[in-house]
């Protein structure tokens, strides 16, 4: 009976499985970890017993501290991992469609082992001829953004959602500063301020940020204001750059019929 079992054990067909991707990636990662890092660790403080001097050790320590501060404030993802994420995103039909229509990959982040890709699209809108000729609106654009979540494990896009940007409310101090800039400008005249509102964030300055263990889209734009005012029976809107202290533009507000 034992003979039978031994024969069975000896004759059983084993899975001859190879996973070349795992083999190659593991080898690369291990070599980078063990030997690659060693070369880059120039900031490592030298041992007091090594040939390096104490002064060099201290300067190495300061450099290391500075690098650490920079890394903590501006986390960077390994470029190859980001390139991998980008490649997965571009394999998705929907994302490819967005890109072919003019969208662009604006930001890629890996947060808590999940990857996110932000795609923004800014399109000129074809305006009716009379509006273009009037010169009131030189250009009109429709801006959209989508955030794609990517599973690195499955190597696929698991969710694509449209980004809905919220206006960041102005603080009282910002409102006061905007009013001050407006009143001291030549635009003011005999106008009557109706409303001070925040400007919409610029899509070109959006980025992915980490929030509550997930990803959120936020603008790196400086907070600016718009002042709606009335002058000589016309309602206008002035865009105020609070940081520069200047009025950037003025436009007539179209009245809804």
């Amino acid at each position: 009976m034992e003979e039978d079992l031994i024969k069975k054990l000896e004759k059983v067909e084993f899975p001859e499985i190879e996973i070349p991707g795992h083999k190659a990636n593991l080898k690369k990662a291990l070599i980078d970890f063990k030997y690659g890092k060693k070369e880059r660790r120039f900031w490592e403080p030298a041992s007091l017993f090594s040939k390096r001097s104490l002064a060099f050790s201290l300067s190495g320590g300061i450099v290391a501290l500075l690098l650490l501060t920079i890394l903590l404030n501006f986390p960077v993802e390994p470029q190859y991992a980001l390139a991998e994420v980008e490649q997965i995103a571009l394999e998705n039909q929907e994302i490819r469609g967005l890109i072919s229509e003019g969208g662009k990959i604006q930001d890629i982040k890996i947060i808590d082992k999940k990857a996110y890709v932000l795609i923004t699209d800014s399109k000129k809108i074809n305006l009716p001829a009379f509006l273009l000729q009037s010169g009131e609106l030189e250009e009109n654009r429709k801006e959209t953004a989508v955030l794609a979540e990517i599973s690195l494990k499955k190597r696929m896009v698991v969710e694509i959602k449209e980004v809905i940007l919220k206006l960041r409310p102005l603080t009282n101090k910002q409102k006061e500063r905007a009013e001050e800039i407006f009143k001291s400008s030549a635009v003011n005249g005999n106008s009557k301020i109706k409303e001070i509102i925040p400007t919409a964030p610029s899509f070109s300055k959006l980025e992915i940020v980490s929030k509550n263990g997930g990803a959120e889209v936020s603008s790196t734009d400086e907070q600016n204001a718009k002042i709606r005012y009335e002058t000589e029976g016309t309602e206008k809107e002035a865009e105020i750059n609070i940081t520069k202290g200047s009025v950037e533009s003025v436009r007539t507000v179209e009245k809804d019929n």
Partner: protein
Amino acid sequence: MDLKAEKELVKRAQNDPDAFSELYEANYSKIFGYILKRVADIEVAQDITSETFFKSLKNIKKFKWRNIPFSSWLYRIAGNEITDYYRKNKYTPVCLDKIPELAYFKTPYDEVAETEKQLEFKKDFLELNKKISGLPIKYQEVIALKFFEKKKIEEICLILGKKEGTVKSLIHRALKKLRQK
């Protein structure tokens, strides 16, 4: 590769990536195969293989040459990790924290799905594996090394760090237990 050449390679691998690469190429397939035969799960086998090579590389400077093949040391590390997996009924490789790239570079889903399909076809093996995995770990180890890896008693002794009599007795008792399954 003879033991003398391997000794030289292991020494060089402490500082030379090419020497480590040579050791890796010579051992990856047999270590992955051994782990896969023990756990019968593609994802777990990949994780344990990663951890085995990570630990070997991390401790390569501590590796003392005792005229034992480098692969025996790898088998021993892998065996310890497999034991850990069976005891906890889950596996969390430490190397993923140390080398985050390993998580980013997880094998494509399609490739894993394809290999899982291949594994499903080995019905006799899976049936046998199910019975063996029900045995105490000390018996699983000797059965796998003796019958799956076709190792000689002498090498099993080196891998497990046990005497010949102990290994023979373990095999005998393992077969007896397996017959009762």
